[in-house]
């Protein structure tokens, strides 16, 4: 296990180099001229040159790339070109609000969808199964904007169940504003998740061990929750763990409609403003998160399934 982990961690290094290189090349090829961008609409050639020098963009590209790599190793991404804020502070400030929305919503969504999928698997082929399946399909077909616009207009504005949008930085105060976005997050994950988990459970439910358990006279709840659920954990872990990085990176639309000052908004602004330091920090962070969670999911396979051995 230790050997496996070391090897996997070492594999990350070349991959991360690749990611940094691609980000760097992409930005320099298609990113627009950041110095001109920062110099503003009245800028003269001289003013653009001054800013180019101040941003370090007058140095040769390989030097700029080395500087970027150096920043990564020192975990100091510098300041945003657009807002002049420290990037680590921007992320630290944004991560709390993003996670306050996505984490509870995600957990809630998983519990609801797994429970519902187990019930559907149990009563497969009944009207309950058919109606739920069709509803899930319909829910998946609707754009997320429809849920957001409708939820905000009807639930918040017309019925007054929730505030329309806003944010309170105190931990206790923020939940008032998170209620509706969490409900919408759960609704958005419902359709796809239920259908996926239902298929996973159906794969399991016809196995011999289930028949044996039934023959032994075990009750259905115990079969579903103790045996089927446990055996279906591998695909569940894959789906759940690999969604984790996206939770940290925030939910862009929900954040911007409900005024949650999370990471999603920071990323969009950075892209709009050709804010390279923020974009590269973000790309790097996403790559690291993705790889780390992938490793976690591999380790978890071994934990839940004795047949899996990490070598």
């Amino acid at each position, binding site marked *: 296990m230790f050997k496996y982990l070391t090897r996997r961690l070492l594999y990350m290094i070349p991959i991360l180099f690749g990611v940094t290189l691609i980000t760097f090349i992409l930005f320099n090829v*298609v*990113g*627009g*001229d950041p110095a*001109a961008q*920062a*110099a*503003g*609409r*009245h*800028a*003269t*050639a001289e*003013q653009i040159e*001054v*800013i180019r*020098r*101040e*941003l370090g963009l007058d140095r040769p590209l390989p030097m700029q790339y080395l500087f970027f790599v150096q920043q990564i190793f020192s975990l100091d991404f510098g*300041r945003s070109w*657009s*807002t*002049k*804020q420290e990037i680590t502070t*921007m992320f630290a*400030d944004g991560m709390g609000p993003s996670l306050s929305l996505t*984490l*509870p*919503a995600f*957990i*809630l969504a998983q*519990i609801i969808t797994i429970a519902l999928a187990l019930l559907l698997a149990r009563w497969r082929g009944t009207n309950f199964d058919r109606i739920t399946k069709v509803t899930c399909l319909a829910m998946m077909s609707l754009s997320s904007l429809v849920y957001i*616009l409708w939820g*905000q*207009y009807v639930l918040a504005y017309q019925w007054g*169940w*929730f*505030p*329309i*949008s*806003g*944010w309170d930085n105190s931990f206790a105060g923020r*939940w*008032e504003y*998170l*209620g509706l976005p*969490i*409900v919408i997050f759960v609704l958005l994950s419902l359709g796809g998740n239920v259908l996926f988990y239902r298929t996973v459970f159906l794969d399991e439910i016809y196995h011999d061990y289930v028949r044996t358990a039934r023959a032994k006279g075990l009750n259905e709840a115990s079969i579903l*929750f103790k045996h089927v*659920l446990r055996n279906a954990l591998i695909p569940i872990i894959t789906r759940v763990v690999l969604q984790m990085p996206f939770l940290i990176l925030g939910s862009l639309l929900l954040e*911007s*409609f*409900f*005024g949650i*000052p999370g990471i999603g*908004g920071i990323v969009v*602004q950075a892209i*709009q*403003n*050709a804010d390279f330091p923020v974009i590269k920090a973000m790309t790097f962070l996403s790559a690291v998160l993705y790889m780390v969670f992938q490793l976690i999911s591999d380790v978890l396979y071994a934990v839940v399934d004795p047949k899996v051995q990490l070598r």
Partner: protein
Amino acid sequence: MFRILIAALLVGSFSLGGCTKKGRESENTLNVVVSSNIKGLDPVNISDTYSSLVASQMYEGLLHYNYLQRPLKLQPLLAAEMPKVSSDGLTHTFKIRPGMKFHDDQAFPESKGREVTAEDFIYSWKRLADPANQSEAFWVFDGKIVGLNEWRDKMGKKEADYSTPVAGLTAPDKNTLVIKLTKPYYQLHYVLAMSTTVVVPKEAVEKYGKEFLNHPVGTGPFKFESWTRNSQIVMVKNPNWATHTYPTEGTEEDKASGALADAGQKLPFVDKLVVHEIIEDQPRWLNFMKGNLDFVAIPKDNFDGAVQSNQMTEEMQKKGILLSITREPDVTYTAFNMLDPVVGKNENLRKAISLATDTDTLIQKFYNGRAVSAHSPIPPDVDGYDANYKNPYKEYNISKAKELLSKAGFPEGKGAPEIEYSTTSSSTARQMAEYFKQNMEAIGLKVKIDSTSWPQFTTKIREKKAQVWGIAWMADYPDAENFLQLLYGQNVSPGPNGSNYKSKEFDALYEKASKLPPGNERTKIYQQMRDIAARDLPWIPNAHRLGYITYHSWLKNFKYHSIINDYLKYLRVDTKARGEQKANL
């Protein structure tokens, strides 16, 4: 497993709890909204409207605009009076109002704000020129103040510091500031009313360093309290502020609307100011409709439901919602790259394109009619604007367009190369590009649309690679020079003259006008330049937009102009009426 499930459910249910609304804001609060996130509050790095608005409540400069008078009129703010200008126009002497103090802040001894002096202005303006600050606003002084560009160069080479004097910026005593110019620059007074030329205290800049952008310390009527980035900024009334009172003169309209009822009163009227950053249209509009915001610009999609024949609908009126229509000092235009071998070298082709552009329909389709057709680069309420002027190529006339297209060498569009129209990737920009394409197809011209991100779009223009594109310019100050400089030969790309238009005749007039003080002679030259631009057609002027802002009737003294930024201090909230009306919204 079950234990985890229960714990998770508890977290979930906790998150759904506490959905009650609390009246946590003090009664006399003004709730303002901006539709973009505020980037930062260090005046040297302020370049957008929204950051300007916020900064202008806390920071002040030498001059500002009278709140009620139209056309806009400058008046002293931290200056004791309007400056004395030497007869050659090169020396401007300002007297600083004595006793003006910075906000109390930890940066000062015993946290007590000290008096503003002339040296503070010199320091603040050197910060604009300091290359390390990467200020976008240096253009306001670039090449105009004796010795300032030299100081900037030396700073870049680390051969100078803030104690190195600049010959054109001197303070003979603590309340006198003398500015020496390299050439006449009558726009100087306008730029001294902008949010980038305000005064900042050296102590705060040094204490907070790069974090100064998050710790504004100015002299204004409101003091900084807190800022949750991408959410809201809170400011509180500065109890020591007494720079001026509510204006006593206004227009007849102001008398009728009650905007003069507070004449001579102490400012500001509200105790607290909250600026909400709400990017999406729907939550911004719904929050206004619920009374959580005191005023808002009507989003495009909500316009038809709220306004009919330039009045609020009956339903809105019943809710006590009022409308303010203002003419924006801006111009949207279709630009041609004059260096382009196809459109740049063929005047008749440009004229044909102009005549085939149906501006009236464009205004209906894309601005809900909220704009007036532009006939020149100079917008309304700006010196040089003439409402009766008609640009000969601004009529929508397909047959005339076709005639000119033949003269251009492309009868019925035959043989004409495909024209590339550059635009940004927003949906409205793309729709407008499609509309342009449709207009051109009517005379047989083929158009290819290139839509990219804003940075790529502007880079393309700066690198002179764009052929035709749509763009807009908003006034920095109410002088036609601010628009005509977009066609001045010395300003070609990467400067603001993206069209790369060069005309000796136009440039000579531009240079002549720049040496003249405001007055009839200068206005006449502006109009001559306008006529030359109409003849050579480096642009098709499209529209001057109108601002439609709605506000609740509990908000008093509301009079909006996009160039005036320090207007929140004049607004009064009738808190009793707000309490009653809000309950019914």
